[in-house]
C-alpha cells in the first residue's frame, strides 16, 4: 500500500514536469520564449508579497472544491455539482453576513456554517435521489448547477436587493479579511480562508482514515455490494458522502463571499471553481494532503498566468493547456508506470 502511494506521488510529479515541458514546447512553437514565459509566471505568482497574497487567495477555494470532489470520489460518487454547491454556499454566506449584527467571534463562524449547510443541502438532493431512487448523480448534479445559478441570481435581485445586480458588502464582523494580512500583502485580497481550507483537508483525512464512518464510506466506494453484505447501510453512506462533499463546496463558496469578494453579484455564467475542483481532486489523488498540493500548483499557475501576457506576451490560456495536459498524463499513468517498472527491473 505504501508502495502504491509512493508510486502515485512519483507519477503525479512526472506528470507535472511533462505538462510544464509540453507548455514550454508550445510556447517555443508559437514563437514565444519559454524561459521568459515561465519567469513571468513565477513573477506573477510569487514576485512580491502582493502577488503571493493573491496566489494564496486563489488557492483557497480550489482546495475546498478539490476536497468536495475528492470526498465524493472516495465513496464512488462523481459530484459534478460542486459548482452549484459553491454558488449556494456563497449566497448563504452573503445572507448570513449581511442580515445579522453579531460579534466577530460568533458572526464569522456562523456565516461559514450557514454556507456549509447550504452546500450540504444542495448535495443532499442528488445523494437522496441516488440512494433511494437510483437516479444517476452526475445528471442530477449537472441540473442542480444551473438551478443554483438561476436561483442565486433571482434571490440577489429580489430578496437581497431591490432589483440590483449586486448585494451590499458583508458586515465587517463576518469578513474573513483582516487588516494585518491586507497590510502585510500590500493590499491584496488575501484573507484568513487559507487556514480554513488547510484545516478542511485535515478534516477530510481524519474523517476518512480515522473514523468508522470514514472506513465505511471508503468501503462503499470500493465495492457497494460487498459493503452491503457486510451489513453497512449503503444508502445512508451515499447520502452522507454527498452531504459532506456539498458542505466542503459550500465553505468554498463562503471563501469567495466572505473573503475574496465580500459580496455577491448576478452571474452570467459559472464560477468554474467547482469544475477546477475536479482537476485538483484528480491530481491530488483524492486525498487531503495531495489536494492541498494540487490546488497549490493549479492556483499558482492560474494566478501567475495573469502576468504572462503583460511581461512575456504569452496568452494566459497557455496555463489551461498545461493543466489539461497534466491531468492527461496522470490519467494515462499506465504508460508512466510501465516505463517506471522497466527502469526498476533493470535496476535490480
Amino acid at each position, binding site marked *: 500500500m505504501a508502495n502504491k502511494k509512493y508510486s502515485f506521488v512519483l507519477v503525479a510529479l512526472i506528470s507535472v514536469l511533462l505538462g510544464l515541458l509540453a507548455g514550454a514546447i508550445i510556447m517555443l512553437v508559437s514563437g514565444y520564449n519559454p524561459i521568459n514565459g515561465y519567469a513571468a509566471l513565477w513573477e506573477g505568482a510569487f514576485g512580491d508579497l502582493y502577488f503571493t497574497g493573491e496566489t494564496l487567495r486563489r488557492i483557497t477555494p480550489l482546495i475546498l472544491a478539490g476536497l468536495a470532489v475528492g470526498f465524493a470520489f472516495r465513496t464512488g460518487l462523481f459530484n459534478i455539482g460542486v459548482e452549484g454547491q459553491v454558488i449556494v454556499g456563497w449566497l448563504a454566506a452573503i445572507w448570513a453576513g449581511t442580515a445579522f449584527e453579531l460579534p466577530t467571534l460568533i458572526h464569522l463562524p456562523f456565516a461559514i456554517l450557514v454556507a456549509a449547510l447550504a452546500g450540504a443541502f444542495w448535495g443532499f438532493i442528488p445523494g437522496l435521489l441516488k440512494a433511494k431512487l437510483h437516479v*444517476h448523480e452526475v445528471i442530477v448534479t449537472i441540473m*442542480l448547477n*444551473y438551478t443554483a445559478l438561476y436561483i442565486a441570481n*433571482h434571490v440577489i435581485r429580489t430578496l437581497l436587493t431591490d432589483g440590483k445586480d449586486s448585494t451590499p458588502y458583508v458586515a465587517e464582523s463576518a469578513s474573513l479579511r483582516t487588516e494585518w494580512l491586507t497590510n502585510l500583502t500590500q493590499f491584496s485580497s488575501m484573507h484568513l480562508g487559507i487556514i480554513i481550507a488547510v484545516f478542511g483537508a485535515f478534516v477530510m483525512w481524519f474523517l476518512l482514515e480515522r473514523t468508522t464512518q470514514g472506513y465505511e464510506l471508503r468501503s462503499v466506494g470500493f465495492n457497494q455490494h460487498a459493503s452491503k453484505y457486510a451489513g453497512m447501510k449503503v444508502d445512508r453512506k451515499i447520502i452522507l458522502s454527498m452531504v459532506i462533499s456539498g458542505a466542503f463546496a459550500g465553505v468554498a463558496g463562503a471563501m469567495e463571499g466572505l473573503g475574496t469578494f465580500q459580496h455577491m453579484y448576478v452571474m452570467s455564467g459559472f464560477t468554474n471553481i467547482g469544475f477546477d475542483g475536479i482537476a485538483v481532486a484528480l491530481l491530488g489523488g483524492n486525498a487531503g494532503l495531495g489536494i492541498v498540493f494540487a490546488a497549490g500548483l493549479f492556483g499558482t499557475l492560474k494566478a501567475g498566468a495573469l502576468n504572462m501576457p503583460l511581461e512575456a506576451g504569452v496568452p494566459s*490560456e497557455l496555463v*489551461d493547456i498545461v493543466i*489539461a495536459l497534466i491531468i492527461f498524463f496522470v*490519467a494515462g499513468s499506465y504508460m508512466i508506470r510501465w516505463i517506471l517498472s522497466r527502469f526498476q527491473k533493470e535496476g535490480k
Partner: protein
Amino acid sequence: MGFFDILQSIIPAAIFFAAPLIFTALGGVLSERSGVINIGLEGLMVMGAFVGVVFNLTFVDVFGPELTPWVSIFVAAIVSALFATFHAVASITLRADQVVSGVAINFLALGIGLFLVKQWYGKGQTDMVSAPFYRESIWLLSDIPVIGPLLFSKTYWTSWLAVLAAVLVWYMLYKTPFGLRLRSVGEHPMAADTNGINVNKMRYIAVIMSGFLGGLGGAVFALTISLDFSHATISGQGFMALAAMIFGKWHPMGALGAALFFGLAQSLSVVSGGIPLLKEIPQVYLLIAPYVLTILALAGFIGRAESPKALGKPYEKGSR
C-alpha cells in the same frame, strides 16, 4: 394570439435550440454504448465551435456565403474527431480512468481554442462570422398544411440534419452488424472478443465518431446561435448533451427526445415574453424549469436508467 400562433413561436425555437444537443448526445450514445464514458463531450463541442467559427471567418471568401457554413461544420467535425482520438488513446490503449481523461479533454479544448484565438486575433473572442446559417423554408415540406408552417418554414436545415442523424445512428446501432458489434463490446467485451470482434478497434471507432458528432454539435451551435467564439460560447451545453444521453437511456431516439425536451423548455423561457399566460410567471421559474423537470422526470416516471454493462472498464485480453 391564438393557440396556433403560440405553437408557431415555440416549436421552431425548440428544434432550433435542440439541434446542437441532438448531435452531441448522439455522439455520447455511440461512445458509451461501446463502453467508453465520454465526459469530454463539452470539450468536443468547444473544439467544434472553435474550428467552425475560425474556418468560417478564414475561408468565407473562398467558398462564398452559401457553401462556407456547410464546409465549416464538416471541417469542425473532422477536427473534433481527430481530437477525440486523444480520449481514445488515453482511455482505451493506456487504460486511463475514462472520467479523468474526459475532464482533461474539456480543459484542453478550451485551453487550445482560447490560446489560438488570442494568438491569431489578439483578443479574447473572434469576430462575428459573416456567413452563418440562416432560417429557410424547406422546399415542398413547408407547403404541407398545419405541420408545414409549424415545422418546416423558417427553420434551419441543420436542425433537420440533426433529426436525420438520430435516425441514422439508430439504424446503424440496431439494424446493422456493425451496430450489434458496437453494442456488444460495451455490454460484454470478453464475449465479443471470443466471437472474433476486435474490442479496442470498435471502441476507437465509436469514440472517434462521437468526436465527429460532438464537433458537429459545437459547430452548429456556433454558426446558428452564438455566431462567434469566446470562453463562454460553449458553457455547459456538452454537459446538457450528456444529460440528454442518460435521460434518453443511452438510446439514439431517447437522446433525440430528451434533447428536444430540453430545447422546448429553453424556448419557453426565451419566447415567454410574447405569450400571455407565461408572461405572468417570474422568469426564474422558466429558467430553471428544464433542469428541475429533468430531475423530477428521472426521479418519477422515467424509471431507472441502466448504463451499458462494461461502461468505464478498459478491456484487457484474458482478464476475467
